[in-house]
């Protein structure tokens, strides 16, 4: 390309030199007497006081610690304010390599911290990337604070939308696109309040780029956040439920997602001990201490089941034709399209209320109604249940011996070898991954007592949750010094492995153990069923369900993202030393990964 001519064709030609005694021309007079003006183009580009600065003040008032994001031009105004005006603190910008990871990180973070993290997504395409993770959080009743940029003046028409939130409206609790800065403040607070009021769920704000980039006019007040009040059961229902519980001879408590916090676990322990009722409580998160004598489903047939935020339709093992009571906030958040909670709550008494918020009143009412005679009965049955629990625990631990020396490594051995390395960590530990595909061995072998000891499953079962949710949970655990453990399926890891880089970049300590069975093993078993049912070739069940040929080298993958990594480990005798080395790295504050070739199921 040629250099530009010094004078463009449209510019006036230079005036000829004149003797200084001659009077100046009109143009020269004007130049010397009028005020110098900047070119309009430069003047209009500088915005010294953008509205997005005010937005950062609002986000800070909401106590949003982090903003997980993959960059996008539709929110560059807000991003600039976060990193410059806000000095990249409260919220701190977390660099994610995929929007699904950003949302899933926020999902995992909220399960530990009990409050939302912000996920900042690019218009249309970024939101589409994040949609699956939003759906998981929605089904899991976990708050995520989602902000999506909208830039209808932007360079890519395909990123525009008339109704940005439409594509995820079925699985967010509330969405809004504020038209003014003042409205943003009010919407931001409302979104936060709705997200954190049971039933908790993701919320979404759409932020127009014009609003982000406009100069701040006036100074809208930063709204204050009031702690939300939780919907508890009415007193008449509480009295009736307490009466039935006290009268029942063999009640069962079926805890799905009742304990959002440690207080929830403590309350459930109080109720169970008061009634001496067994609790099915290590299901979709830790609701009840795993080694409590009342943990389990008791013995014999129950005559009453109390479902507390059940994740299915309710019911509990060992139930006779007795009374069923369900307390669940699910019916308060039902959308017509996706049936994430398995249909209407069932029971003889169904209360649409938050179970954890109802427990204090229920405990008080049970305490009021129970008589000395009933107390004696409760104590007798409690001794039976404690014995049943002890026998079951003995059997479960003994079962861990099966395949103990097998190659590939048994999942029970992975959990057993890990336990002594984390149990004595002075700042405690946190198991931040699902355990359903692991034979639930951590829940069987580890002493889970605190809410952060097990944060539960995916929500909607959407793959790709494991690694990013674990990183988000580990981020929340970091400030408490806890060691975070993620036993990670290999299939799940391959959806968005870039989150390993995010863990390395932001120095998030997390031990990831790839439970590597080189397959989408659940699907492999389903295919095997189909092939056998049709009697035409079980040997082909592996087509499309295995992850082999070539085998994926997760050690090299992790190293490429900047992590300490070892593997693949196939010999069980090599596992313990490798775990010790990796745990030492994590205790020192960095993420580490071990690739362990495992038996397909526990």
């Amino acid at each position: 390309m040629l250099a530009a001519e010094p004078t463009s064709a449209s510019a006036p030609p230079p005036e000829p030199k004149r003797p200084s005694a001659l009077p100046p021309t009109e143009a020269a007079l004007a130049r010397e007497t009028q005020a110098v003006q900047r070119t309009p183009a430069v003047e209009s580009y500088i915005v010294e006081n953008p509205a997005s600065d005010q937005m950062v003040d609002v986000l800070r008032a909401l106590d949003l610690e982090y903003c997980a994001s993959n960059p996008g031009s539709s929110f560059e105004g807000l991003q600039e304010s976060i990193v410059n005006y806000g000095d990249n603190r409260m919220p701190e910008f977390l660099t994610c390599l995929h929007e699904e990871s950003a949302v899933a990180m926020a999902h995992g973070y909220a399960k530990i911290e009990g409050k939302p993290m912000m996920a900042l997504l690019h218009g249309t395409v970024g939101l589409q990337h994040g949609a699956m993770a939003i759906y998981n959080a929605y089904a899991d009743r976990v708050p995520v604070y989602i902000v999506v940029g909208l830039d209808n003046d932007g360079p890519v028409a395909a990123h525009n939308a008339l109704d940005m939130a439409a594509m995820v409206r079925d699985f967010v609790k509330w969405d809004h696109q504020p038209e003014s800065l003042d409205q943003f403040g009010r919407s931001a607070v409302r979104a936060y309040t709705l997200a954190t009021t049971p039933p908790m769920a993701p919320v979404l704000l759409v932020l127009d780029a014009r609003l982000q980039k406009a100069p701040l006019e006036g100074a809208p007040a930063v709204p204050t956040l009031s702690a939300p009040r939780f919907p508890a059961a009415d007193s008449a229902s509480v009295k009736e439920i307490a009466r039935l519980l006290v009268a029942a001879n063999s009640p069962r408590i079926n805890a799905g997602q009742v304990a959002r916090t440690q207080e929830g676990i403590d309350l459930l322990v109080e109720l169970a001990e008061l009634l001496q009722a067994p609790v099915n409580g290590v299901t979709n998160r830790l609701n009840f201490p795993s080694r409590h004598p009342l943990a389990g489903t008791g013995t014999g047939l129950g005559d009453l089941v109390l479902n507390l935020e059940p994740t299915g339709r309710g019911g509990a093992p060992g139930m006779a034709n007795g009374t069923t009571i369900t307390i669940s906030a699910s019916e308060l958040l039902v959308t017509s399209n996706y049936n994430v909670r398995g249909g209407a709550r069932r029971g003889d008494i169904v209360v649409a209320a938050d179970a954890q918020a109802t427990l204090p009143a229920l405990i008080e009412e049970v305490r009021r109604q129970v008589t000395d005679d009933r107390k004696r009965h409760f104590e007798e049955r409690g001794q039976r249940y404690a014995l049943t629990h002890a026998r079951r625990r003995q059997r479960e631990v003994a079962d861990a011996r099966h395949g103990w020396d097998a190659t590939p490594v048994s999942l029970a051995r992975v959990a057993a070898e890990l336990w002594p390395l984390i149990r004595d960590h002075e700042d405690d530990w946190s198991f931040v991954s699902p355990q359903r595909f692991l034979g639930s061995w951590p829940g069987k072998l580890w002493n889970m007592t605190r809410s952060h000891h097990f944060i539960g499953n995916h929500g909607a079962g959407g793959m790709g949750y494991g690694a990013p949710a674990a990183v988000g949970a580990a981020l929340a655990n970091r400030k408490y010094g806890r060691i975070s453990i993620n036993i990670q399926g290999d299939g799940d890891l391959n959806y968005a492995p870039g989150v390993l880089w995010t863990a390395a970049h932001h120095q998030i300590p997390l031990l990831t153990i790839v439970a590597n069975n080189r397959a989408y093993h659940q699907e492999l078993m389903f295919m095997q069923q189909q092939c056998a049912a049709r009697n035409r070739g079980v040997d082909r069940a592996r087509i499309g369900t295995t992850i082999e040929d070539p085998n994926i080298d997760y050690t090299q993958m992790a190293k490429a993202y900047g992590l300490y990594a070892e593997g693949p480990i196939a010999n069980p005798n090599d596992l313990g030393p490798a775990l010790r080395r990796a745990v030492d790295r994590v205790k020192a504050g960095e993420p580490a990964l071990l690739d362990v070739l495992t038996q397909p199921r526990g």
Partner: protein
Amino acid sequence: MRMTGWLSLGLGVSGAALFTVVTAGATIEPSQDPAALRGDTDRGRVLFETYTCYGCHGYTGETGFGPRLNPPRHDQAEFVQYLRNPRNPRRMPPYQQDDASDQTLADIFAYLTSLPSASPEAESIPLLQTILTGDENADDPPN
């Protein structure tokens, strides 16, 4: 301790082709007494993978959702009978003669009977004993 074909042979989708070769040499006589067929351990090892038995029973027949197969709890006749008519066909797929011949099942049975145990007694595993006694956690960790 045994390393199965999944690791040592690198079997992938090529397992289907390998299965064809293996079964080509097998004697498939539905009228024969299934219990009288002599199984081939090496063929059985490959078939155990090809038929994805390991999916529910683990690579050594000792782990997973399904019942323990190592050591076998039934004789060969009972084993074949069960696979033809499992008690719960929604969990354990039924294998008919066309899909898995008596010889195929005899080979798998022979493999199962040849497997050494990788499951020591729980009492001999210190880690499990410590977990069982609960001595490791006298005090709850801090919040």
